[in-house]
């Protein structure tokens, strides 16, 4: 059954506004990534190239942090990869949303991030999910990379970005996007807090990236298959 919609998914002003806000926030974080990298002594092309081809905020910050701290290239690459293993699970979860054509698969895969997956999964219906994924994916890729370039060129002009509180904004983005799913699904209300507790408990003891993977053990609390 097709429901009557006042707005098409791509012209949904609410979705556009939400995506624009997250793009803006990630653009500012991109600026700080570019600025931190260059201030630490890396040439401008390093953060810029890394953002284009790796395109994963937390892995980029950790890799550059390790490089700048003298931790060595192997540790930098391994930590970044460990942080990004979760994108495999995310890619599986949004595969249907990305689409079937090969250009869509190859480009869409690169746009799989925490935020695009959260935006897609927060929508109801395949059409709206697809629109949300591509809108947030293309928007964030453009703004993140523009931000990194600007930050790398400008250096420390923004000052310490911690004072803008953006580090609290991203967990809040995730909270806003996952709450509808948590409200709907009692299984998730058991599995997600259990997983988060495991992740928090092991964080001091294991390498970065591993805690969220171990959170998947929370799925044991997910329960039996829901009736269709």
């Amino acid at each position, binding site marked *: 059954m097709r429901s009557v919609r006042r707005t098409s998914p791509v012209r949904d002003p609410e979705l556009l*506004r*939400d995506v624009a*806000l997250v793009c803006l*926030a990630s653009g500012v974080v991109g600026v700080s990534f570019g600025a931190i990298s260059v201030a630490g002594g890396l040439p401008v092309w*390093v953060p810029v190239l*890394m953002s284009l081809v*790796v395109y994963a905020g937390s892995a980029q910050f950790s*890799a550059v942090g390790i*490089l700048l701290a003298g931790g060595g*290239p192997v540790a*930098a690459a391994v930590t970044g*990869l460990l942080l990004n*293993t979760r*994108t*495999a*699970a*995310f*890619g*599986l*979860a*949004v*595969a249907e949303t*990305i689409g079937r054509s090969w250009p869509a698969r190859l480009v*869409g*895969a*690169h746009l*799989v991030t*925490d935020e695009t*997956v959260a935006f897609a*999964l927060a929508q109801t219906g395949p059409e709206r999910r697809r629109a949300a994924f591509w809108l947030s994916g293309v928007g964030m890729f453009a703004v993140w990379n523009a931000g990194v370039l600007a930050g790398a060129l400008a250096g420390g002009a923004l000052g310490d970005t911690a*004072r*803008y*509180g953006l*580090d*609290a*904004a991203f*967990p*809040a983005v*995730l*909270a*806003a*996007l*996952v709450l509808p799913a*948590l409200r709907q699904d009692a299984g998730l209300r058991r599995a*997600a807090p259990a*997983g988060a*507790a495991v*992740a*928090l408990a092991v*964080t*001091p003891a294991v390498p970065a990236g591993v*805690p*969220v993977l171990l*959170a*998947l053990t*929370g*799925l044991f609390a997910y329960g039996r*298959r*829901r009736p*269709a």
Partner: protein
Amino acid sequence: MSATVAVILALAVGTYAFRLVGPVLHGRVVLPARVRELLSAGAVVLLVALLATGALTEDGGFAGWARPAGVSAGGILAWSRAPFVVVVLGAAVTTALLRAAGVA
């Protein structure tokens, strides 16, 4: 090829490979309904774990009070069905104000 280029390339190729698993398998491997259900539940579990670790931890330790306070403010706003913009800005502004007031 410098070590830095090697790091960037290894990260880029590895990350893209992780991301490509789902889209490449889609349509070739028919996953049972239960597995598909667990995959999307798993994505939500991962996002909530990222939320929790992102809110509370930094480099394996406690992130300080300002950030979890801001995230909690955002969470309360989201729970009371405030608009997305209000949730996100509420979290950032709370943390920013606490930091301006000297709370780490």
